[in-house]
């Protein structure tokens, strides 16, 4: 290829790469954070793009609630996904927008179909006081309890801590930690001695244990009978503006969004 055509080609390719970045295209809204909110965020994004194809495109990552909050406070993403309420230790300047409510279920393997556990039993198991299934009435397996929890950035772990254990009890140290709801479900479904906790949306293939006699289902959570319910938030740095504001408005107020939320989560009134 001759010298001049080569230079022309390089200039053309560079222009193709650079120009679109400056052209007027649709906004990209990036989100990261809670693995529990992730399926909801994906569903809402799909519905939004179907309703308004030209307004925005979405990129949604996971990582855990704390990572989402950190990312949004540093401006790395537009919206952070959180599955726990705001804490004092969170960075300043963040606005939490509630978008849904969700239930947290204790889960066991399908070979160990425990119908319900009391609050004390759950506390004793997760703090490590009870270590063997033989000490748990209703257990269908024998042997050591394989306890699993979530990694530090998880909002579900915080919600579980607050709702089921209270403020002065902690999950036993040295408990293996899983990085997402999906991984927790995977682990419990393949280990017959396992017990853990997940968001309501992740119950396929595992046994959901009832809490104090009430089984953990979407219906019971919506009606308020099941007590293990927590909030989902979409977090922005300061008040949302631009494409993010339009989107959040749609999520919190439109009927289409409400339909998406009620399908597998609890819609806000």
């Amino acid at each position, binding site marked *: 290829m001759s010298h001049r055509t080569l230079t022309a080609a390089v200039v053309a390719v560079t222009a193709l790469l650079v120009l679109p970045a400056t052209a007027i295209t649709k906004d990209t809204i990036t989100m990261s954070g809670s693995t529990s909110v992730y399926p909801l965020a994906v569903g809402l994004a799909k519905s939004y793009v179907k309703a308004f194809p030209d307004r925005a495109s979405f990129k949604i990552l996971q*990582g855990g609630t704390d990572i989402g909050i950190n990312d949004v406070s540093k401006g*790395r993403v537009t919206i952070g996904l959180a599955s726990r309420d705001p804490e004092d230790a969170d960075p*300043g300047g963040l606005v939490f927008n509630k978008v849904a409510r969700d239930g947290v279920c204790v889960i066991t393997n399908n070979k160990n179909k425990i119908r319900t556990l009391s609050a004390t039993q759950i506390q004793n198991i997760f703090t490590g006081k009870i270590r063997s299934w033989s000490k748990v009435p209703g257990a269908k397996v024998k042997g050591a309890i394989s306890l699993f929890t979530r990694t*530090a*950035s998880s909002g579900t772990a915080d919600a579980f801590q607050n709702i089921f254990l209270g403020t002065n009890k902690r999950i036993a*140290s*040295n408990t*293996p930690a899983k*990085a997402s709801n999906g991984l927790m479900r995977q682990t419990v479904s393949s280990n017959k001695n396992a017990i853990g906790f997940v968001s309501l949306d992740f119950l396929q293939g595992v046994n959901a244990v009832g809490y104090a006699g009430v089984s953990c289902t979407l219906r019971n959570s919506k009606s308020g009978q099941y007590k293990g319910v927590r909030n989902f938030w979409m977090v922005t740095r300061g008040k949302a503006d631009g494409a993010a504001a339009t989107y959040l408005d749609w999520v919190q107020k439109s009927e289409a969004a409400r339909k998406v939320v009620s399908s597998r989560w609890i819609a806000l009134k």
Partner: protein
Amino acid sequence: MADSTTGASASAQPGRASRRWSDARAEPVLAGISALVLAIIGAMVIFVLVSAWPSFAHNGLGWFGSGGGPVDEQLRAIQRSPAEPSNYVYELHAWPLLFGTLLTTGLALIFGLIFSLLSAVFIVEFAPPPLRRLLEPIVRLLAAVPSVIYGLIGILALGPLLDGLISEQRKEEVIFVVPLSGLNLTLATLILTIMITPIMIAIIVNALRSVPRSWTEGAAALGVNRWRTIWKISVRAARPAIIAAAVLATARALGEAIMLSMVSGSFGFAPNPLDGFSFFFEPVRPLAATIIDNAEALSVKPLGQTIYAFAAVLLVSSAMLSFAGWAAKQPMKKYAGRV
């Protein structure tokens, strides 16, 4: 004559003279692009070390030691540290992770070297020709298998096998301290050995074959049997290549993240040889696997910097390895054969 040829070429392609690159122009351009490679490495080393510095600065030499509780708890504390930079928690004693890396890499290297040497000697000398024709593609095949596939087979097929070897009772006994399972040190070392062996075999076979035939034939003429010839002469002559192979294999073993994160148990723990039989079933989590397990947290300040610290340790180790390999080869340069 020369005049007419240059004259002919100049007139045959009138515009070409301006498009022909002279060496004076080409050489600096090529050198500049090659120097780009250096710039990339320099940038990488600087970026990683600078990002990792706070973690080392806060911990000092204790970073490499043990203590402070289970290392996973320390990582959790780092991740939960408050948002103000002045309140970041950095405390980390990474010995369990370092020990896990040393154990898996070291054991895999030892077993791999023995296995590769024996196999290479077999391929070069003792294999019957049909078997030799089969073995060479096999070695190339094993080298080409991607690491996810090794990890997949390990976690889905071999893990449950190993899991059956520990008794439920033993698991219950130690559940306070560490979860024993089929994904453990043994499985990690086994698969890592299989992964690094083909590279070493290929290099050693090459080197054994390039030992001058006069040497081996001279030994045969003196009545030395084939086994002793190959060990005392060919393998000794191939020592630089064996070292090069070992360095390459160790670098590969150090950097193996995906396969180890799948099969090594994902629990930061320093296996204790004094535990007896359980030692073989204790989980580990080498440095590279820790990095990839926490890869989403790279942007969160204190944990991100700790992860860069792990990467810095890996980077410095592989650089030192290359240097050590080069240094070890120097005294052996007097032997013939490819170095």
